[in-house]
């Protein structure tokens, strides 16, 4: 966990997204897939909190050595300064933060499922997994073609990719999860990683539970600090002993969480006070291959 003043090396459009490359050697050195950075807002803004972004890529060697890339979804923010990031400006960045995805120790067939900016951490993960000799396949969803992040790059990283858009403007038309039965079958998927909107994560988790496939998801919850101080970013997860549940911090205990532990119906539900607590004996997948 390092705080650094980082120059923006480039800020380029990729579809509707903005892909931002920072000079951040120490953070890049440490960052693992699934971790995030906290980017400070410019001075004097009414909305003064840092904004969390997944690490999308790091370069430790070569011409880009010491750089780190993250991806901004300008449609997901009302803060102009994020959409207007430009080369040569400096950002106050803290990172890497949070728990990365756990990697399988023995070679397995991995399916990575993402939508929108969820591609950011998963492409980073794909690179790492392939590098470690795992089979990687990807399912990439989005509302429309320009909300599918860099499908070309995905092709390079994965054995197979499936693109799904709600409007059919790229790949198959439909819901991202619709293709999971066929894809997992075809690829002999042994573990699933997912990132994207909470709805997607829940659908993936439910699919994986029904097939008994272990899954990890990169959760997002509103964060005041991202550092573990404020306890605002909590996610309800079943206790390991199966008795009751805890509120754990997405920023420190996540973002990468075992999908089976998350109590999806309880997460962010209003009026949960009246729900039976604790929900005993939920069906969790505790094993993780490797």
């Amino acid at each position: 966990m390092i705080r650094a003043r980082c120059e923006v090396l480039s800020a380029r459009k990729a579809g509707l997204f903005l892909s931002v490359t920072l000079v951040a050697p120490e953070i890049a050195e440490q960052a693992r897939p699934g971790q995030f950075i906290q980017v400070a807002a410019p001075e004097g803004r009414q909305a003064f909190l840092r904004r969390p972004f997944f690490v999308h890529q790091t370069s430790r060697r070569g011409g880009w050595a010491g750089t780190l890339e993250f991806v901004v979804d300008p449609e997901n923010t009302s803060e102009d300064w994020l959409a207007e990031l430009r080369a040569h400006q400096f950002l106050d960045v803290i990172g890497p933060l949070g728990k990365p995805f756990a990697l399988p120790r023995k070679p397995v067939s991995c399916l990575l499922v993402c939508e929108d900016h969820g591609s950011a951490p998963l492409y980073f993960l794909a690179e790492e997994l392939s590098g470690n000799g795992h089979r990687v396949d990807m399912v990439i969803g989005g509302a429309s073609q320009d909300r599918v992040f860099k499908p070309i790059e995905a092709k390079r990283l994965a054995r197979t990719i499936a693109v799904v858009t709600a409007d059919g403007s790229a790949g198959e038309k439909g819901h991202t999860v619709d293709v999971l039965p066929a894809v997992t079958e075809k690829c002999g998927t042994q573990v699933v990683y997912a990132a994207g909107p909470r709805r997607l994560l829940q659908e993936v988790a439910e699919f994986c539970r029904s097939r008994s496939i272990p899954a990890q998801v990169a959760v997002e919850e509103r964060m005041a600090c991202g550092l573990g101080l404020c306890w605002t970013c909590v996610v309800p997860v079943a206790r390991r002993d199966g008795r009751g549940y805890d509120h754990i911090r997405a920023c420190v205990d996540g973002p990468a969480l075992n999908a089976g532990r998350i109590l999806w119906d309880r997460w962010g539900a209003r009026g949960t006070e009246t729900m039976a607590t604790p929900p005993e004996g939920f069906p969790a997948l505790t094993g993780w291959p490797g």
Partner: protein
Amino acid sequence: MTAPARTGGDDGSAAPAVRPSASVDLAGVRLPTPVMVASGCFGPELGHLTDLRKLGGIVSRSITLGPERGVPTPRVAETPSGLLTGTGLQNDGLQAFVERELPAMVRTRVPVFVSVGGFSVEEYMQLAIGLEPMAEALAAIEVNACCPSRDRDGRWFSETPEGAAEVVGAVARLTHIPVFVKLSAAVADVAKVADAAVRAGALGVTITHSLPALSVDVGSWQARLASGTGGLSGPAIRPIALRAVREVALALPGTPILGVGGISTGSDAVEFLLAGAWAVQVGTALFTNPSAAVEVAQGIMRFLSDNGLGSVADVRGRLGAPPVPPPAAADAEEGA
């Protein structure tokens, strides 16, 4: 109106002979610097990004007797220059705190205040008793009086002088640890509440807790926080907190006051000292700038040396008193 105290010898020279002293004496409770971390805003994680040994002290988040899971998310919303949070006092309860959280705080070697919260006077009493064995390790107990009282229809103890006195008295009678009380500026007459708390045994007063507030998402027709109402903190509330500190300082000149609310720079902190705070706490600012507390302390020290002052006590409450005059003018005055 007395002239601000000067250091540096009897000749009235404004340049201090020695570096100003950072330490603060809160009627017996010594802080190495005048800047503590406010309740609910410390975690050992902070140690990755700032030197914890340079803190003036740490207030724990509010500990309850038993574990509290807190409320669902969303627990945070941004408002203009403000942070609205509602966590529902999430913590693992007294025993878990003492076993698992406190040791890391004590290891920092800076003064530790344990904040305690409860929903009945009985619970505050139990907390006082439970903390007594830790007396050696603790600099003080901060009684968070901004908790909903079961006997008062869920209204905060701190809303009335009687409520504040009740919980402070409950703790103070049962402990040898110095007791501070955390109050809210969201009352008509905060000085009256503070006075009652001090009479009931509080050594000092911490003002302000975050202020009750609401934000609504017009898209979903829902409150932005799962808890509905939340607490407003951050720069937005600074002028309100500052005024509350001033009111208490004027009413209780001998009582140590810890000013808190929207402080993020040394200059912000000096505003509180001038208004009458003896020291300050920093909360929300740490979320964006993890070294805020240390930087605020440095800023105060710079202010002291720039003004030729020897310690924080030389600024305290001197709002309206002119700054130290330049040496020449001072001499002329003394001659008159």
